[in-house]
């Protein structure tokens, strides 16, 4: 009889406490200020427009573009497949699922990189990985992809390759009915950024 009562006397209050504590407090900011500054300094959060264009063309299902501007701006122009998540709504509960996963690559974009960076900072601080910022924002996108500058004839091969890629990407994304010029893997710029710059902490295998 007695052990049961002792046990109950302990676990009931503990249970009440843990039930009363709001779940959010068990998920504090995950990164220290130093860690976050490191990441900012190494610019790991940026994704080049070429990479994104490539993924859009190839219909890569792991890409998720997120437009953090206002709804009006989104309706005027948005990138293919993008969803609109105005910066002001970033922390609302309905979007937690969007960030709290490790399958899709979320790429924030805005006109420049200001708002997109803010979105990245906030989500990164909450510990979510797999969030990136479109380098240069839409302004650079228009310049680079939709209206690529022809490199001077003295430029390196790489520049020409990039130009070719951007031209065809621009054509594909500009909505023209032409088939995409064949850009085999060697023409497209270097491999997609690995989903994590640091080796991701792998969960231990378990079960059995």
């Amino acid at each position, binding site marked *: *009889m007695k052990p049961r009562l002792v*046990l*109950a006397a302990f676990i009931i209050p*503990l249970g009440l406490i843990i039930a009363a504590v709001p*779940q959010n407090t*068990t998920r504090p900011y995950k990164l220290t200020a130093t860690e976050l500054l490191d990441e900012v300094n190494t610019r790991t959060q940026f994704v080049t427009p070429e990479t994104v264009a490539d993924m859009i063309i190839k219909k890569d299902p792991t890409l998720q573009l997120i437009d953090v501007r206002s709804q009006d701006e989104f309706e005027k122009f948005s990138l293919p497949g993008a969803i609109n998540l105005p910066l002001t709504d970033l922390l609302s509960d309905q979007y937690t699922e969007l960030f709290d996963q490790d399958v899709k690559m979320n790429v924030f974009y805005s006109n420049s990189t200001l708002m997109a960076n803010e979105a990245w900072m906030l989500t990164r601080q909450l510990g979510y990985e797999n969030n990136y910022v479109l380098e240069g924002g839409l302004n650079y996108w228009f310049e680079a992809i939709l209206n690529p500058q022809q490199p001077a004839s003295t430029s390196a091969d790489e520049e020409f390759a990039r130009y070719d890629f951007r031209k065809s990407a621009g054509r594909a994304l500009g909505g023209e009915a032409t088939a995409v010029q064949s850009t085999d893997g060697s023409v497209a710029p270097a491999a997609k950024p690995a989903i994590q710059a640091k080796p991701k902490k792998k969960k231990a295998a378990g*079960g059995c």
Partner: protein
Amino acid sequence: MGPLAVNEIISENTNFFLAFIIGIGFGFVLESSGFSSSRKLAGVFYGYDMVVLKVFFTGAITAMLGLLFFSLFGWVDMDLVYVNPTFLTSAIIGGVIMGVGFIMGGYCPGTSFCGASIGKIDALLFIVGLFIGVSVFGAGYNWWDELYLSGFLGSPKVSESLGLSDGVFALILIVVALVMFWAAEWAEKKFPRQEY
């Protein structure tokens, strides 16, 4: 801080060594509680010995509360702790088959090792049976791999599926368990028992 091995605070070899130590603790507690006896284990199904229910639920609740509080204090990152995935069909069918095996054999893998360690020959045969069963599964894998992989729901928590917070669910479970403990004491008084 935790989990130590995942955050690479300890090396993989240390992790394995500690696994051994944890195993010693596991085996010691199980055996001391009487889980090395198949007759005690089977008692929960007939009412004469409810040790399985008491130990099992007390253990699960203790660990559950421990993890929730550790997470609250920031001592462990629950995102890095393994949560068993849910493959609905195979979880149920596998569970049913295991249930048959349990009531027939009177052991489960962990307790059979305990029983074998103190010399129970029936436990030893159970272990032999385990090896055979696993081998049969492996050999015929191609026949049931579809079944094995179907019904994948990710790794949801029960609290999530019920729309409750972890803490609230833990409290509910505690209350349910306490009710069961009182019922268990009643059952043991009602059904005669011997000490095995």
